[in-house]
């Protein structure tokens, strides 16, 4: 695999980034060509889907097979004996797969699936433990041009069943011994009741023989060759169902060509820059196999780049021993973990000898503070700059903003720089760009190939949820951008509340209310309750013409509108009508204040010097009295 030289200096990087954004199509065309195409594409993108970040189709006339790119290609190019997967037990390597071995096993499973009737485009649900079986299953599904639907073991059986229905899954691949057994059992029963074939990978731990016998003809002969089925670049590779924030399952769709291109770019930029180019790295991601980041960086990313996927437990218990085992190799080892893992690791950690330091540590999931990153740099990783703060979101497809493992491209504590080809910006509530260091929301002003294409069956909802009024793709992360161009995380803009047993995101509720033609803006505030859970209070600014209408009548209409669209989401208990939202001088809705008003805190109107429109609050508080 040829890794062209990456910029190592900030100025150089920023210039290259600007070029990659200004000539987006040309940049992505170049990146797209790194993949192996059965039918090469003629153009990187077309905007037939309409304007804005979600409108583009990427590599629209190209055809390719993901599995061929991740496995066959390496074998064909003479890397068949290179390690593809390493399974680690609690101290040693239990099993490895070379790319050739992996190819053979994938072929076998693909044959088995084909025998079950799985064809290109068929969704196949996967609920497997973190071992080679999961990687093999994904590759086998992709080999057939089918669509993987990863399920999380944390989902309730009922929620997973709804996912199987929503995705119209045609088969269910699992491991009946894995935990939580009750859930797995329930799903197996449900699948059988609904005529879904169930495939048991049959090994819950590492080192086992996954899919033993499956796909091998009854005669015991070796399985037949299943050729990789090329699909359109825009054909889905997998559906990802996030578990929280919505009461109903919501399947984000990722396109094969675009997503693979994006993952490969980030795999190279994040984990290979600063490395001697051709050395494969070992990747271990501390996330469940159903998480997007696992699928991206413990599966497709390393396989596309010819790196090594490590299947092993996260070294957060007995960290020194586990890290020693993990780093007992000449390959550079990369560990991606969450801040929660860091806290756990620190509890029982003692200093590591230099040779067992990790080449690179990436932090994902939650916000992480500079002091924790500094600790990683000083104690875990080989260098302070070898600590990455990875920004990912389910919708972005993979990490598109990150610090990079080079002294000039890393600021400890920063969220990092937008990766090449990604147009990211900080904007205020009105979609206008913020100045240097002014805080606002991180948005993507243009599309990129890895971006989720839609929500399965709900394209309108997808746009409503993720595009702001200015047509930018919103992340709901509050950030600032410093004078060097680094983003710094400040806060999450979306409150996820527990209401009546459901997780509800306030931004989702707001997007429903704002869809009403008579609503100019809406803010939903969660008020922490006792045992009853949280309650929701809505603040609604009607359009001007509605000023004179009787509020109770308007509220009734709004409630009906909300009921129709919100499904099982909780209805706000109270609607407050306001002329406009109280805003700070930069235009942010002052949620802290609304929160106090929602709690009937009548002192809320005392110090309003920082607001642009303090009179609005005085009105509200007066009403409260």
């Amino acid at each position, binding site marked *: 695999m040829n890794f062209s030289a990456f910029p190592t200096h900030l100025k150089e990087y920023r210039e290259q980034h600007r070029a990659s954004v200004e000539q987006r199509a040309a940049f992505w065309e170049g990146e797209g060509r790194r993949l192996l195409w059965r039918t090469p594409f003629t153009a990187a993108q077309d905007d037939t889907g309409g304007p804005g970040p979600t409108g583009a189709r990427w590599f629209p006339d190209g055809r390719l097979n993901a599995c061929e790119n991740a496995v066959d290609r390496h074998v064909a190019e003479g890397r068949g004996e290179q390690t593809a997967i390493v399974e680690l037990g609690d101290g040693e390597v239990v099993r490895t797969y070379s790319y050739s071995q992996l190819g053979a096993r994938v072929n076998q499973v693909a044959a088995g699936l084909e025998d079950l009737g799985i064809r290109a485009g068929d969704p196949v649900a996967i609920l497997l433990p973190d071992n080679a079986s999961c990687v093999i299953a994904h590759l086998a599904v992709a080999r057939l041009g089918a669509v993987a639907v990863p399920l999380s073991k944390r989902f309730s059986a009922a929620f997973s069943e709804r996912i199987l229905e929503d995705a119209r899954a045609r088969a269910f691949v699992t491991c009946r011994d894995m935990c939580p057994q009750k859930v797995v059992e329930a799903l197996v029963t449900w699948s059988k009741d609904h005529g879904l074939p169930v495939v048991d990978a049959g090994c819950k731990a590492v080192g086992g023989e996954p899919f033993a016998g499956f796909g091998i003809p009854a005669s015991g002969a070796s399985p037949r060759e299943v050729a990789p089925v090329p699909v359109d670049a825009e054909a889905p590779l997998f559906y990802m169902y996030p578990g929280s924030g919505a009461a109903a399952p919501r399947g984000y769709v990722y396109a094969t060509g675009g997503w693979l291109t994006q993952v490969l770019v980030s795999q190279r930029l994040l984990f290979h820059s600063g490395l001697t180019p051709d050395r494969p790295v070992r990747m271990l991601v501390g996330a469940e196999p159903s998480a997007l980041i696992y699928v991206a960086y413990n599966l497709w990313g390393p396989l596309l780049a010819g790196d090594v996927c490590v299947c092993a437990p996260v070294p957060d218990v007995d960290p020194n021993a586990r890290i020693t085992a993990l780093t007992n190799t000449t390959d550079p080892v990369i560990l991606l973990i969450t801040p929660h893992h860091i806290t756990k690791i620190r509890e029982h950690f003692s200093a590591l000898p230099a040779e067992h330091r990790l080449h690179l540590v990436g932090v994902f999931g939650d916000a992480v*503070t500079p002091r924790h990153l500094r600790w990683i740099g000083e104690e875990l990783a080989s260098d302070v700059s070898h600590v990455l703060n990875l920004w990912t979101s389910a919708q972005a497809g993979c990490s598109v903003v990150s610090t990079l493992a080079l002294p000039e491209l890393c600021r400890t*504590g920063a969220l990092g720089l937008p990766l090449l080809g990604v147009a990211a910006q900080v904007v205020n509530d009105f979609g206008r760009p913020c100045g240097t260091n002014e805080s606002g929301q991180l948005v993507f002003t243009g599309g990129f190939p890895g971006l989720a294409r839609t929500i399965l069956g709900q394209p309108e909802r997808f746009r409503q949820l993720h595009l702001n009024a200015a047509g930018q793709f919103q992340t709901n992360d509050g950030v600032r951008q410093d004078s060097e161009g680094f983003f*710094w995380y400040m*806060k999450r803009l979306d409150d996820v509340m527990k209401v009546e047993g459901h997780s509800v995101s306030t931004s989702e509720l707001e997007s429903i209310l704002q869809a009403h033609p008579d609503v100019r803006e809406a803010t939903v505030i969660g008020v922490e309750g006792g045992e009853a859970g949280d309650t929701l209070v809505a603040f609604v600014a009607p359009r*001007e013409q509605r000023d004179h209408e009787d509020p109770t009548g308007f509220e009734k209409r709004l409630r009906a509108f909300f009921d129709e669209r919100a499904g099982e989401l909780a209805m706000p208990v109270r609607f407050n009508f306001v002329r406009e939202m109280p805003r*700070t001088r930069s235009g942010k809705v002052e*949620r802290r204040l609304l929160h106090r008003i929602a709690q009937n805190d009548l002192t809320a109107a005392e*110090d309003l*010097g*920082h607001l642009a429109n303090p009179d609005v609050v005085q009105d509200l508080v007066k009403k409260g009295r």
Partner: protein
Amino acid sequence: MTAFSRFADAVAELGRTQIAASVGDRQAQVLFADWSRELEDLVLEDPVALADPGIRAQLQSAVAGLASAQGSPVARMLLGEMISALLDAERDVQDGRLVMERRLPAPAAHSAGAEPPPILGINPAPPPTKVPWSVAPNKTRESEGHIPPGDPDGADARNEGILRWMQENGLLLNDLAGIACRGGFIQPVPSGTYRVVPEMLADLEQPIISHASNLSIGMAVRLSQLAANPGKILITMTDPVVCDEVDTVERVTGAVKLKRDGVGAHYLNHKAVWRLVASVLGQPPEQVNVVSAHIGGGSSVAVHEGGRVTAVSNAFSGIPSANRAGRLDLPPLLAALDRDELTSKELRGLVFSSGGLLSLAGTNDFRALVNFVQQGATEDQARKIQLILDFFGRQIAANVLQLALAERRVFAAVLTGGLARSEEIASRVRNHLGYFPLVRVPGSFEHEALAAGTLCGLQSPQTLKNYVRERDLLADRRRAENRLIDTTIFAEVIRYRKHGQPITSLDDLLASTCIKVKETFMPTVAIFGADNEEAILAAKKANEQGQYKLANFRLVGDYAAISKIAYDYDLVIDDANYVIDDTDNALVRGVELMDEGKAHIVMKGSYKTEEILRAVFKYLKGSGRLQPGQLISHCVVMDIPKRNKLLIISDAAVNTYPDKNKKIQILENALKVAANLRIPKPKVGIISAIESVNKSIESSIEAAELAAVFADRTDCIVEGPLSLDVAMDPAIAHEKKYKGQVAGTADVLIMPDIDAGNVLYKTLTTQSGAVCAGVILLGDMPMILTSRGDSARSKLASMALSINMYLDLVSRGVLPAPGALPAPSGE
């Protein structure tokens, strides 16, 4: 027509040659005299000749030639005269048909020339007069009706008069193609011709001003309903008095509560004369910018810029007129109101009906006034009449010039309205306005303009404006502008202060601190536990309220928590002015920053005061910056309304029941604050319940002892025991025959214990509207402490006080200057 063309040639020459301009000027004047004589002759001989296209073309070319010679003052003057003369001549032709044609856009003018359809115009004036009129084919007929005093007035009564008149003149209601109404005080809209809609009647139920013209819409609607086919009659309203097109700047006045708008001018006539002047110049009206002054019973001035009246001097607040006072100077007006020489009712009269000429001369009839000079005026009266005429001339010209800003590229001034007939006025205005051609169009063109509006509507209905839409759009725009004008910039008033003034209020303190920071360096404040809303808001305010920034801040604490608050409150973390120091333990890190010289002043954040004091105290002692015997104490500086200087109270927060030695230190610390406030020889009162030593009151004994300790000091006056009233109120001190120097003028009060101190301090802040600034002194080190209960002003003042003290200490060498270290630069 030779004089016409000769004149045009001469004028063209005038524009080309710069040399011997005066010769050219003289020649042009002579030729102009010939020209106008010829025009006069022509009109006398055959008025209809002016309608001949050939003659009109020649006239046009003369005007065009003159218009291109704008450089010469004479050309300017002549151009004005020429347009005036031309319009004057055309006015009588075919009952004003030529003038009306000029008022119409080209295609409409052609067909109007062919056969204008019959239109009834309704222009009601105050009772007992009403003026209906009508354009029948090729002529205008005009009449006034009168309702006898006492008879009921109203739409129906007036309509009866119109119907009677139409009958007398052989006009049939059923023949009417349209009715043109004056409009009235409906809601403000941009200018133009509007289709009359029911919403107008609804808006007129509560008119902005009640006025006879408000009747016209109701009259027209009812008249049309009497016709056989009411739907066939187009009812329009053109350029009502409530037009409003002014731009945002014009909406502002020097009092934020009072906003202006464009309403209240004779738009119908302003717009008409502007179009006329443009048509004589042969240009689209939108390209001809003029200032028009309508002077009459009410007078207004409007500037026409790109087709809109972007600014206006309305009929009540600008030029004086026959009946209205116009602009008045406010201080004499206020004085007159204060002295009851003028009631608000009389003022209203001056503004609306009995001011102006009526007030100055006792008449609102200019002709009577001018004629009186010849008919028996005394010498003084004659001189006053000249004075009044000068006054009017100058006011009119000044108002015109006020609107003729350079960027508006005003081409000409137009004088119109009844008073424009007066040569006495016109000549004065002309003399003042040498900068522009002055076109004089006496009288008004109400009727022609109204009929022209309806005619245009009949020709091209799509040009008619939609009242509801325009009204609502304008209202939205004005609301948005109001919001902009009402936007708060500084919630608390910041007054400009000069350097070096004594500090007698907390505002002075803030200003003085800002200047000191600017002149020396910007210290860095470390907030211990910055994950605290109060602290962050205060830190933000510190750098946005004064003339300059006050300090740099190190926000010490948990990064995530601080970031969240910073995000919500728009605090800009720029890694210079505000830096986050991510740490688990802000006390340890904060002290570290002090030790490294990266922070200079401690500010309390989310930690408890005791915790911070303990940590800082330990550090200061360990590093030798706190001398043995120095004490931690709290001083509060009060800015009490009705008191002309600041008051320092100590100790109301830290030391609970201090003994004598501690009190000595408390007093020393308070004196440091006094010195910082530039109080040269502070007067200190040691407070007790009484002002003489009483064995049963312990505090009085201690006070006396304390005063004795300081008796020999020359830098301060310490007296005690003192009761609070004797220390604070000179009158009471006098009454109680107190002989000391403090006598009601204390600068510092040393309180007997924390209870008394705290009660006094809280009483003042909660009951007297006093604002306070607090500081904790750790020996010499000031520490900023604001509490949730403090007002925003008080938080800011507290910061200023500590920073001011710190800078003082550095400049006096008591604290090390941060010079050796990379000083955080005050940009």
